[in-house]
């Protein structure tokens, strides 16, 4: 779900934007910096909602830009623990199911959080739920799945090393800055089509 968070930040307005109204240039600068980024322990910032307070700009010797402290609210995507969401299955592995939303990919349902009577079929690369002896319900890739958020994991990401920034070194498997652990254990969870 989306929430509004109140944040203050010091924004540098470059001299070439002095001619446009400060609200516009501030919003642009903030969007450039924050949109589609994860703030640690907060969530995924979507965009600026509104500006609450704009302080006077400060000048630094040797810099043509002006530094403005601004108080604003931004839309943040941060599901709470226990929230029920729907997404798409992107990958099935023996360890669990990876789920993605259109704008967020790092959702994982570990095998211990899937229905008890569920098993992984390596041949079909799919998880199969057997609510009783005869029925077999498949969780396939690209199916719409409903799940409950159980845990959120924030990882502090180090800045890129100079080698990585130049493209000399491919970054090794980094942990994503924000990931969700989800579960699929109670009635109503699992593929949306099962319950309609």
């Amino acid at each position, binding site marked *: *779900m989306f929430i509004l968070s109140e*944040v*203050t930040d010091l924004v540098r307005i470059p001299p070439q934007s002095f001619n446009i109204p400060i609200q516009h240039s501030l919003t642009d600068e903030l969007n450039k910096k924050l*949109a589609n980024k994860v703030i640690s322990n907060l969530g995924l910032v979507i*965009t600026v909602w509104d500006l609450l307070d704009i302080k006077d700009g400060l000048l630094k010797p040797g810099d043509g830009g002006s530094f403005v402290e601004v108080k604003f609210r931004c839309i943040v995507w941060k599901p709470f623990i226990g929230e029920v969401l729907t997404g798409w299955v992107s990958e099935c592995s023996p360890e669990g199911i990876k789920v993605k939303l*259109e704008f967020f990919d790092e959702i994982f349902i570990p095998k211990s959080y899937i229905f008890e009577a569920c098993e992984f079929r390596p041949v079909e690369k799919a998880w199969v739920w057997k609510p009783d002896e005869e029925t077999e319900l498949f969780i396939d890739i690209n199916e719409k799945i409903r799940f409950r958020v159980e845990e959120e994991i924030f990882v502090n990401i180090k800045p890129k090393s100079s080698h990585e920034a130049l493209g000399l070194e491919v970054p090794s498997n980094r942990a994503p800055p924000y990931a969700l652990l989800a579960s699929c254990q109670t*009635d109503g969870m699992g593929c949306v089509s099962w319950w*309609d």
Partner: protein
Amino acid sequence: MKILNERDSFLSNYEVGEFMKDIKKKYNWTFTAEDDEAQANDKRKFKKRFTACGLELEVITRDVLSYLSNSASSAIDTQQNFQKLMEFLNGFELMKIEKLQIVNALPRSMVHLYALVEECDLRFDEERCELIIAKINELFPVEEEEEEEEQEEQDEGEESEQFKSAEQTPEQ
């Protein structure tokens, strides 16, 4: 950067959707072929695509809008209907967060509603739960259309298969 208030208020998917649509309109972005067409037909405005806000905003606007259009809350069409549903839900002893989840997910089956509302079976009897679902179906009728669409899709699928077989026959 300092976070003053982590959660100033909650937003429903509908509100976010409206806000993102405004942004998209403001910057004249087009994400689908239909958008392109609509803009080509719109002769009044000058068609400048502003990018001063950076690429990331455009990416997230596109993705969030496509997420919201795929989600159940896209059935909410007008603010009046949204308001009606909220007023109706206020009559129940629901937590704020539960109401929000109902508005976002628009449950149309008992199982789905039970998943959203904690201990739903203890707090509400079946009749009252059915009232909620009935109200949702009344305000936002969608299921029949969906079935039709599926039917159409299937028809199309069959057609294309026929096409393929028709194409293949002369080769053979």
